[in-house]
């Protein structure tokens, strides 16, 4: 169908985007790679001697690295599970007939528009602060002991905040998908006496698989580099309890000003992100073929 002419035209049209992204990727990445083999501390100007793989060795040997790696996976996984499960439930609820559906949808979508720094600041101070926050007042009223969220469960608290931000996104995609569900099929199943649960399991969920795939893919892209929420709420602590890879690299290069070590960490993070990417693309690429 496509002619030779349109093929070369297509190539011309794609190339600006491809070349720009290639430059965006390769130039800084090349520099990062270059720095990662040097002893380069911003605070100590002068020569940057070559140190081979020392920066990589130190970065991996640091126990914080493994903590950060696990935290990254927990954070991404936790938010994905929370948003997909709650998103499906919420989407089903919102799909039911009700009064004021439009307004409810406006309420539900709102967190998506809030910038991460603001949502982190608001949750940290107005809600989770153990002395002045709203939870500090609410929990004893409900007969529970006061709880210091960001100290006692830092990673879970951050997962919660990030989930709050991304739940609207998941809900809306899943809601749109549910609305496109063939209602005749649903009614037929209902006639046949299928329970609500089995209707959900055998009809709704398979229908949603494609939408869930998109939610997972897009969110993973953003969740791998969660940063502002951690910086604002816990600074990665206490200890390293809420440090993810992005934050660890940040701490190395901009709190210790160790550009060499930070660059090595950056390269490692990029490699790991690419492994996740390949894994994800493989699993999801098929599902996206139309």
């Amino acid at each position, binding site marked *: 169908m496509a002619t030779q002419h349109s093929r070369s035209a297509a190539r011309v049209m794609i190339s600006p985007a491809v070349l720009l992204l290639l430059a965006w990727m390769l130039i800084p990445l090349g520099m990062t790679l270059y720095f990662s083999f040097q002893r380069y501390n911003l*605070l100590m100007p002068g020569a940057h001697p070559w140190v081979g793989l020392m920066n990589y060795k130190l970065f991996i040997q640091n126990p914080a690295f493994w903590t950060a790696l696990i935290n990254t996976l927990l954070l991404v996984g936790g938010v994905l599970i929370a948003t997909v499960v709650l998103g499906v439930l919420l989407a089903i609820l919102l799909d039911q007939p009700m009064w004021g559906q439009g307004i409810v949808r406006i309420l539900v979508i709102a967190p998506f528009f809030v910038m991460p720094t603001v949502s982190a600041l608001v949750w940290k101070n107005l809600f989770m602060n153990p002395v002045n926050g709203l939870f500090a007042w609410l929990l004893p009223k409900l007969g529970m002991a006061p709880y*210091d969220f960001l*100290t006692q469960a830092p990673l879970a608290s951050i997962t919660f905040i990030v989930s709050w931000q991304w739940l609207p996104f998941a809900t809306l995609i899943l809601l749109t998908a549910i609305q496109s569900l063939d209602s005749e099929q649903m009614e037929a199943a209902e006639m046949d006496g299928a329970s609500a649960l089995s209707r959900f399991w055998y009809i709704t969920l398979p229908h949603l698989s494609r939408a869930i795939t998109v939610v997972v893919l897009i969110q993973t892209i953003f969740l791998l580099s969660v940063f502002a929420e951690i910086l604002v709420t816990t*600074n990665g602590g*206490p*200890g390293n309890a809420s440090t993810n890879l992005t934050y660890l690299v940040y701490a190395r290069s901009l709190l210790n000003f160790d550009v060499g070590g930070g660059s090595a960490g950056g390269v490692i993070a990029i490699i790991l992100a690419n492994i996740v990417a390949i894994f994800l693309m493989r699993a999801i690429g098929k599902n996206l073929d139309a």
Partner: protein
Amino acid sequence: MTSMTRALLGATALCAIGATAASAQTLTIATVNNGDMIRMQGLTDDFTSEHPDIQLEWVTLEENVLRQRVTTDIATNGGQYDVITIGNYEVPIWANQQWLAPLEDMPEDYDADDLLPAIAGGLSVDGTLYAAPFYGESAMVMYRTDLAEEAGIDMPDQPTWTDVMAAAEAFNDPDNGTYGICLRGKAGWGENMAFITAMSNSYGARWFDMDWQPQFDSPEWTATLSDYLNMMENYGPPGAANNGFNENLALFQQGRCGIWIDATVAASFVTDPDESTVADNVGFAQFPNKDGVDNHGNWLWSWNLAIPSSSGNVEAAKQFVAWATSKGYTDLVAAEEGWRAAPPGTRTSLYENAEYQDAAPFAAMTLESIDAVDTNAPSVQEIPYTGAQFVSIPEFQGIGTAVGQAFSAALAGQMDAEAALSQAQQITTQEMTASGYIE
């Protein structure tokens, strides 16, 4: 990059976005979002009316973020800022690297001789001033006199840690939302490590021995950290591992803390009736020491205005720095907000001013605390470094923050004192080896 291309790029930017033309001289000032700096920002009309050709742009950030941004910029020669706010830790190190423009030829009425010698000394290299102190501080004990009266406790002017712990226990009343003692817990070399290092000094501990071997395995450090953790666990507020200076200030102002040991500069805020619910009930005492150790922590900090040598507006910047750190500025603050609000700890003349002494009940204790500091011998033991609540080497920022994280994790209950100290020892040894201090 030639200026031609730069101009072209600038022109493109202007065309593309339709920005308004910048005035001849715009100073970009990076500063910390502490109360005194916010006040300065509010008073700049006084400066701009005298210097109509200079416009001011403010970048006001939290301490850690500010430090990161300013350091990145100055170390890469970025030139984004014309005036920066830095501590007495950075000044000599950066001056030696020629990142700062020397503050020579200040206006005549600046009177550099009036600066407190302890403060000015830390900002000079070979007799040349590289930064002008905006305010200076040591640390002291602030406590609630009403609670002390109620509990029948008499806080001495020079308390020991035993006195402080007894008072904290007496003041502690968590059911009514009052906690015995508030101390810094937020990880960072300028946050919890400032306090813990000062406390360790007063316990007779040191960071390094004469061969730069870290000393966290010493009994003095064990005593410091376990006492710190005990106090916070038994009489401290919840969430202390996230509390820095500002968080504790808010707590104290709301009457949530019986005792707060922190920077002397806090005194003017906790006694401010507009902001503090306990303004009339604050007493002051010197930084505690351990029985038998003649050392009151040696905390000395000043926030200073400096000019990066990469700035393109050094002369205009100098005029601003002179204005903001002059006696005239102090008078301006006094006129606008009262003498109590004057930026403390930089000028001898302020402490000789009778009006200030009347308005600021904390003046004498502040000066006494600053005078008690010896930055050449912060520890009673022999040490290879100078400093106060920090160690004056470039590597300290990174090491201090990493150690601070370990201590903050201990405060959060993730590990005990012993584990935190051995982690601190390990991290410090590794970093000191990597940077060549230890073979």
